[in-house]
């Protein structure tokens, strides 16, 4: 039954209610990650402190998604822009949001050095194993055998090397006394929220946080709803979902 309701969709305060439907494709993981992030910002009451930065690639479509001050930057450069912000104003809680290309390929030097220096921000890498906006090319995290536009016969690891494991890499260089490093998945958004909570609390305490979120890209994967969740399950077998580094006293 179609009705005209007074109440609209249940949005977090940290979500921009004015834009209506998001710009993401049907079934895109970004929507799940971002709404969970927004809910976490609400629950930790960080709405006035949070600064959101997004990259290019699909993540740029979130340039007006959040109801917090936002900057949409350039390929892989969200990390330096946001730590530039928090270096200048350490009271802010900086969030740099990007895809696996922005985080682990074109912006990887920023990720590595931000982790080494324990820059005060949360870096979120939405890992959907391909470059979405540019049309579904191989990314650093493309799974062995996975077909993409630049690996039309499946990713051959003998030629391309093995998929990058971002969270493990960051965990191996992050300062355990200042950092929170985890991998989560959009298959469990309650768990994702508790992961974001720790990550943001750590940033609010002056620390460095990195969360890789296993995400989905039904459009470029060419998967239906059932296949999409199945593919995510396979990814979770390959990319271990867990907390790798957690500074003491963080709950």
């Amino acid at each position, binding site marked *: 039954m*179609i*009705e005209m*309701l007074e109440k*609209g*969709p249940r949005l977090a305060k940290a979500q921009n209610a004015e834009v209506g439907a998001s710009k993401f494709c049907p079934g895109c993981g970004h*929507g799940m990650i971002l709404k969970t992030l927004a809910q976490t910002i609400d629950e930790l009451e960080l709405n006035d402190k949070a600064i959101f930065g997004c990259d290019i690639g699909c993540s740029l479509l979130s340039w007006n998604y959040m109801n917090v001050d936002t900057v949409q930057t350039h390929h892989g450069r969200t990390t330096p822009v946001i730590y530039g912000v928090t270096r200048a104003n350490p009271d802010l809680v900086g969030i740099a949001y990007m895809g696996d290309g922005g985080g682990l390929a074109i912006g990887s030097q920023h990720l590595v050095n931000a982790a080494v220096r324990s820059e005060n921000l949360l870096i979120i890498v939405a890992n959907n194993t391909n470059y979405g906006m540019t049309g579904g090319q191989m990314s650093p995290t493309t799974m062995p055998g996975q077909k993409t536009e630049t690996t039309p016969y499946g990713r051959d690891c003998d030629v391309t090397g093995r998929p990058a494991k971002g969270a493990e890499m960051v965990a191996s260089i992050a300062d355990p006394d200042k950092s929170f490093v985890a991998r989560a998945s959009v298959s469990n958004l309650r768990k994702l929220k508790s992961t974001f909570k720790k990550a943001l609390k750590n940033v609010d305490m002056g620390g460095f946080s990195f969360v890789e979120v296993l995400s989905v890209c039904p459009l470029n994967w060419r998967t239906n709803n059932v296949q999409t969740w199945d593919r995510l399950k396979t990814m979770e077998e390959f990319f271990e979902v867990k907390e790798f580094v957690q500074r003491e006293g963080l709950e």
Partner: protein
Amino acid sequence: MTTKHKAITVNDVAKGKADWHLYTDYCKGCGLCIVKCPKKCLNWSKEVGIYQTPAVEPNRDECIGCGTCELVCPDNAIRVEKK
């Protein structure tokens, strides 16, 4: 000023304990909620979403109003109102 929101509404799910709404201006018809539903009671609807693709709606008798579909929806299209 109040804007009204067009929605597919299934009232009195979960033995009358909840109302189920889907905002058609938000639903993109991805169907991810269908797979996640613990009761497997969501189905494609005759109504369409923002991209003129089928939206979804629950079988009133089977739906337990648990809110999993609302949680998982990437686009905030679903609202399960517990009474």
